[in-house]
């Protein structure tokens, strides 16, 4: 984050050249891989864009009509997941970095990292076998008592396999990613900043507000973007848990939930053939573009606010 110190010119030794070369190759490979993915997606998508929309599943009037609800579902589920995961993750990260006694903090850190290593199919099984049935009574209550509120419009799902359940599972999966990154960033807060705040009479919470959070803001945004990337692209959980439908709906507790792009590909690919495969790959291209746009926007936000972040 700080400006790089100007290093005096050292004579280049072979080891330096080899190392410099290998880092360039490493950097190049990631760009090449990304380019290869983009080329593959575009090339395989073209037949879907020019195909007769009647050949697409559900016979929509155009490809956009087919992909619209999927894009909505993808963003909606990821947004709900982040809405739950972000405050919780910040809380856990701050607890570990600034509140917990050292042994507790270390143990908790390990456990959080362990959570990130659980494969998503296990989260999916948990979601469908445990979480969804457990939530049914709560959903019934919400719909019975708050049914007038657009998010809880009846009818209620009898299985709990709703977008809210999916978002909760996604949140659990995203929390370790955001938490461990934020924790690392918060621990980097210059001790002088913190001590200065405390010396001015700030309480610990005020110190966090004026010193830790502003310093960590770019890190928080980056962590959130990584978490969002996982939530947007998560396939297995959505494919297993969600009761999908071809709709755009904000209802959290119903049976007709908007499907996500990744979940839709997973569910339909095994029996797709002909142009159906191209259509699914084309939805993958759309997901690629959506992710790219969201990441660029986030990066722009971070860059614009860097001057005021207190990091310099």
């Amino acid at each position, binding site marked *: 984050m700080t400006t790089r110190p100007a290093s005096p010119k050292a004579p280049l030794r072979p080891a330096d050249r080899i190392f410099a070369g290998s880092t360039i190759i490493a950097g190049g490979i990631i760009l090449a891989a990304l380019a290869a993915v983009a080329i593959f997606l575009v090339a395989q998508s073209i037949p879907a864009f020019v195909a007769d929309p009647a050949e697409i*599943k*559900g016979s929509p009037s155009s490809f956009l009509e087919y992909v619209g609800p999927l894009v909505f579902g993808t963003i909606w589920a990821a947004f709900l997941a982040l809405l739950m995961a972000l405050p919780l993750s910040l809380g856990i990260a701050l607890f570990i970095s600034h509140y917990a006694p050292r042994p507790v903090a270390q143990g908790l850190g390990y456990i959080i990292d362990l959570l990130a290593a659980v494969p998503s199919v296990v989260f999916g099984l948990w979601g*469908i*076998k445990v979480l*969804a*049935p457990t939530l*049914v009574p709560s959903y019934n209550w919400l719909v019975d008592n708050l049914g007038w509120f657009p998010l809880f419009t*009846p*009818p*209620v*799902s*009898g*299985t*709990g*396999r709703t977008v809210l359940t999916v978002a909760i599972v996604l949140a659990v999966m995203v929390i370790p990613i955001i938490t461990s990154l934020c924790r690392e960033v918060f621990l980097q807060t210059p001790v002088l900043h913190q001590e200065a705040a405390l010396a001015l009479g700030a309480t610990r919470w005020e110190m966090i507000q004026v010193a830790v959070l502003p310093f960590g803001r770019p890190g928080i945004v980056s962590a959130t973007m990584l978490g969002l990337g996982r939530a947007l692209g998560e396939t297995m959980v959505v*494919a*297993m848990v969600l*009761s*999908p*439908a*071809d*709709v755009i709906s904000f209802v959290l507790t119903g*049976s*007709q939930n908007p499907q996500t792009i990744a979940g839709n590909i997973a*569910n*339909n690919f*095994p*029996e*797709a*053939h*002909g142009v159906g495969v191209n259509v699914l790959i084309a939805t993958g291209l759309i997901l690629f573009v959506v992710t790219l746009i969201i990441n660029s926007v986030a990066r722009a936000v971070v860059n614009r606010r860097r001057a005021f972040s207190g990091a310099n």
Partner: protein
Amino acid sequence: MNLTRFGTVGAIAMAGAILLSSCAANETAGSGNASGTLNGAGSSAQGSAQEAWRAAFQTANSKATINYDPSGSGAGREQFIAGGVDFAGSDSALKPEEIAGGFAGCVDGSGYVQVPVYISPIAVIFNVKGVDALNLDATTLAGIFKGTITKWDDPAIVALNPDATLPSASITAVHRSDDSGTTKNFTDYLNKVAPAVWDAPAADPFPYKVGEGANGTSGVVDAVTNGTNTIGYADASKAGSLTIAAIKVGDKFVAPSAEGAAKVVAESPAGATASDADLSVALDRTTTDPSHYPLVLVSYIDACLEYKDAKVGSLVKEYVSYIASEKGQADAAAAAGSSPLTSELSAKVLAVVGNIK
């Protein structure tokens, strides 16, 4: 001393093995000396039956290799027409326009073979506390899945089940979210028997935007099992411990059974494309004979009557003959829970398959 004892045991075991294998030789799959490689693709409903057939056939014919890709009926037919695979498994009969186009793997103008090999009754499964038997007619079933009947104590359901204590709870109707032959047969039944309510034609995707979707047979069974006040449809063999509704046929209520499913297929009229080599049937959904269970899925094998490669032809003949035989049907029933063909239908199929070259 120990050695001799072992020797005796060994000798007995050996003798037993020889005895058993000589017995088993009478019931092996195929001649035992079939060889070559066969590639098939299509219906995923047939998938687990095909696995059992392949395993038994390859065990009996160690030089033969059978591959089957359960990529879906439409994909299977497409690949068979293009000559990419030697045979296709399909939950729906070949369409007239598909037949008219010819088949790349067959000798020009020789025609094709289409025989039913896999019959599976579709069960209406439900999970409602305190209800362990349920009678439904097609109109009510259509109303439930179309979303016009939304409560378990709806007068239409109560009228059919005067003795049941039905809760005043919302119905969650679970359907397949992926394209499926099961959905196609289920919607075909509703469309034929209750056209006033179910106005959508039979199709692989579920036609209405109501109810809850679940992926695959296991997804539907899981959703119905784990949910409350749920109802769904799935292959009867996969229903597990769930309670199964009886559907109205004539003036009786009939639960799914292997006999009822096989009988309705055997006694249905011939399909639109039927011929000497095409045994496709137009399933009689509106039957009023209570020994029939008309909510059934039938899956075919499509093959050439004469293959360009005669070796492939003789292998297909041997493999499909085994599938349609009593042993093949029993193997599928054991592995996939399907309903064996009636012996008359099996004989008809074997006669047709015998002409494959």
